[in-house]
């Protein structure tokens, strides 16, 4: 069990370290083990904390954190977070699991759409560059 926990944590950590939401993948991976959904979600939250603190300090040092206007997000987010967390504690594990499943599928579909769009855009740009490179100089000047 300990081996699996560290292994699953490691895998999610690699994805999280690449900035792609390791937490979202940690939950389904932990669901392979015999654990309750609430316990899995609590593990997800607690294991994210040290990484979050270190990453935030590093990004702040590199001037990547913009504090302006963020208060407009943080205050309502914290208030609704308490509501959501309390509601979650009073929800059945199976219901929570299903809700998390729906959330993952939606996020996955959205991310897949964004990355495919980006890949198509990049492909078109490369193709355009290639065509421009092979144009005769007279046409290039005219353009």
């Amino acid at each position, binding site marked *: 069990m300990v081996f699996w*926990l560290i292994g*699953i*944590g*490691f*895998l*999610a*950590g*690699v*994805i*999280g*370290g*690449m900035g792609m*939401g*390791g*937490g*979202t*993948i*940690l939950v*389904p*991976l932990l669901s392979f083990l015999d654990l309750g959904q*609430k316990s899995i*979600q*609590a*593990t997800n*939250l*607690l294991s*994210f*904390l040290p990484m*979050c603190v270190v990453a935030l300090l590093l*990004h702040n040092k*590199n001037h990547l*954190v*913009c*504090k302006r*206007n963020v208060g*407009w*997000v*943080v205050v309502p*987010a*914290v*208030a*609704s*977070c*308490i509501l*959501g*967390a309390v*509601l*979650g504690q009073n929800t059945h594990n199976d219901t*929570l*699991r299903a809700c*998390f*499943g729906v*959330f*993952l*599928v939606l996020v996955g*579909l959205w991310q*897949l759409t964004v*990355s495919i769009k*980006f*890949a198509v855009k990049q492909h078109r740009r490369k193709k355009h560059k290639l065509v421009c490179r092979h144009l005769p100089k007279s046409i290039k000047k005219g353009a």
Partner: protein
Amino acid sequence: MWKKSALVLGGVVAGFINGFLGGGGGVVIVSLLLSVLKLDQKKSQATALLVILPLTVVSAVVYVVYGNVDWRTALFTTIGVVAGGIVGALLLKKLDSNVVKMIFAIVLILGGVKMFF
């Protein structure tokens, strides 16, 4: 005015998701910062942590108060996550991030479907 309203609304949605599902608020926050505050990808991801940190602390406190934490599971998973996080940060520069994103999206969908079984 619409900007502040969008930030408040986005915050409410992200906070609720993070508390109810024990994570996932970051995805909403990053999109919010990208689209409303027009921050670039790196700054959005970095700034999202500033929002997510208090959300994670507050959610974790609620889970602890309700006695839903398995401390042994949390400890060993955290050890793995921290070690993996360092490796992931080092790998980031060596991989095509868009290909990784596509693979990750497919894994997310499969993970989501798995949650129903």
